[in-house]
Every structure is written in structure tokens, then in C-alpha cells.
């Protein structure tokens, strides 16, 4: 069995990738799948303010990942703050604005 010599930057799973191929600089050196690499790049584009929360949400949705129903246990702790940032995107807050009664309680 191949040694699990890498840790996925998105989910934290241990996986095998050829160290000799690292010079190719492809996604395998940091992510366990192409999907996780794509999700990671979306998150750092959000972090670097290249993507808005809305854009990041749509990009992730395009990969089949609905951030609003995401299971945090499947993602590394270092991604959680960015995922929460997307979940709290302004457009969602506006569309799903809570309705309050006269006492101020929902």
C-alpha cells in the first residue's frame, strides 16, 4: 500500500501522492481530489478578496457544494471561518431576513 504522505488542505484527509511528481506543481501535492483543490482555490480567492461571498457561494454551488448545508466535519478547521463567511453572505441575509414580532423576538 502506498504511504499516505500528504494531507488534504481542504478536508485534512491523509492521502498518497507521488513526491517525485511534486515538481509538476499540480493539485495532487496539496489536495486529495481535483474537487477539493477547486474548492480550496475558491476559498482563498474569497480570503484574498478576489471573490465576494456571493461569487464564492455560486462557484462552490457550481461544483455541487451547497455551503448552506455543508457538513463542517468534512472540512479542515482552517476552512471553517471562510465557509461561515459565505454562509453569512449579505444577499442571503437580505433574502432570508428574519421576521420579527412587535416584541422583537422572532
Amino acid at each position, binding site marked *: 500500500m502506498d504511504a499516505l504522505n500528504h494531507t488534504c*488542505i*481542504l478536508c485534512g484527509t491523509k492521502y498518497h501522492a507521488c513526491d517525485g511528481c511534486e515538481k509538476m*506543481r499540480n493539485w495532487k*501535492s496539496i489536495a486529495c481530489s481535483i474537487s477539493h483543490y477547486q474548492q480550496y*482555490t475558491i476559498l*482563498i480567492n474569497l*480570503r*484574498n478578496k478576489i471573490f465576494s461571498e456571493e461569487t464564492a457561494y455560486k462557484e462552490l454551488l457550481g461544483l455541487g457544494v451547497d455551503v448552506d448545508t455543508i457538513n463542517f466535519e468534512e472540512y479542515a478547521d*482552517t*476552512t471553517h471561518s471562510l465557509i461561515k463567511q459565505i454562509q453569512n453572505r449579505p444577499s442571503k441575509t437580505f433574502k432570508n431576513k428574519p421576521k420579527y414580532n412587535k416584541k422583537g423576538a422572532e
Partner: protein
Amino acid sequence: MFNISNLINDKPLFIAGYSKSMGKCNWRLNNFSAWQVSADGEIVTKTDNTGTAVASFNRAKSVEMSGESTFYNLDLLAAQNGTKKKVGSSDNKIIVPAYKVFDTTAEQTTVVLDYTPIGTSGAEIKYIYEYNLDNSPIKEFEIAATADATHFALDAETKTITLPTGLPVGTRIGLDYERESEDAIEVNVSAIEFPIPEKVIVAIKTQDTCGTKQSVLFYEFPNAQMTVSSSVSHGTEDTHPFSLTCAQDYCSLDKRLYRVVVPSEVPADFIVV
């Protein structure tokens, strides 16, 4: 008529290798020493039935030369390995190692690198390290989407590293990465490239025994090949050794190994070189 037999060596002026097909200069050393050319051969002896030599014949003449470049020479290194020196440009950048070492200051959360790192997009630098005061790594931090106590984050475009959280003030951090530069040179030594035969010319400054006339003695090797085997060290006083095997010019009628030429005159500025 110019006809002398004795010469006094002054100093070597240059040695240069030229493409046999194009005549293009591939490398040239203007500062070298300990140059020597040596010939070898075999003697085959015929003996009679008592073992007494009857006749001897010389066979298998071979010539080698060697010397030491005073300076570490990249063109020589390329020639020894059958390659060319690559000079960087805007559209032909060269990958260069880079590193940074710094001590964290109060409330420091980021550090800006000197150069833009290259690598897998999003993880151009995979690890940074906490260093001992002797700059040896004692703890590693891995890249992540955001920084925490055991991870750092990197925005390659702005060259900014977000440091791991909770580092005490004065923590020494070190990191290595790669960058691209158009102002760099490279010699790529490959296991599948080898030197090819060249025409090599060596010039030695000489004078006659009366001390009245300076001249230049030229060695011309029509079919010399750099020897791959070499050992280079980088002490300040160390030199860059080289050696060449000189084969005969097989397709010529005289099977020349080399020739020596001494003109009666050479330009004065040539001798000054």
C-alpha cells in the same frame, strides 16, 4: 626568415573551445593555470625465440590536456556537461531558490516576502518553520486556507504570509521558496547530455631565449573533447579544473592530434591580454 627552436614560457593567455561545424566559440578561459598537454602510447616489442627484443613499434598514440581555471567558470561547467549557459530574460525566466529568516515583533501577524513565490497555485510555499537561534528548524507549520496555531496562510499575489497565531514575540521564523527571475543565469547539468568534440585553441605567451622578441605559441587541437569527470570545490582559493581528451582528426589525411604554431609577430595588445 623567422626560425627559432627554443622558447621561454611566460604565461598562458587563453584556451577556447569552438564548434567544429560552425566555428562558433563555445567557451573561453582567459585566466587559467597548471595547463599541461601529455601524450601517451604503447610500445609493442617483437622478441626472438630467446626473448631478446628484435624490434619495437609505437602504437596507439593519445593526447590529453588539463588545467585549472582560476575562477569558477559557468561556460566551462556547461562545456564539461555538454550543455549551454542559459541567460534569463523577460520571456525566459529562471527559477531561483529564495529564503527569508526573521524574528517576529509585537503584534506581528503577517510578513511580506521579498519576491513572488511560485509553485502549485494556492500553495506556493507549503511549509514555514520556527527556527532555533542557530537557524535550524525545530517546528514546522503547514499552509492552510486560514492561519491558526499550527498553520499559516499565503497570498502569493501580494507576497503576504499570514503567520500562525499565538507566536511569542521574538520567534524566529524561516522559510524557503522558489521564485522566477529574468536576471539570473543557469547551467542545467543533465544525466543525458554529454560534451561533443570541439576544436580547441590554447595560446601561451612566450619569448625567445635572448629576451628580445615576444611571441605567442598556439596549440590547435582539431578534435578535443571535454572530460565529464571533474571535481569542483568552492573554497576561495580553489580553482575550476578541467581536462580534455584529444583524438585524432580521423577524416583528415594526416590524422592530426594537434599542431603547434608560433608566428613571428602578434599584435601587441594581444600579448598584453
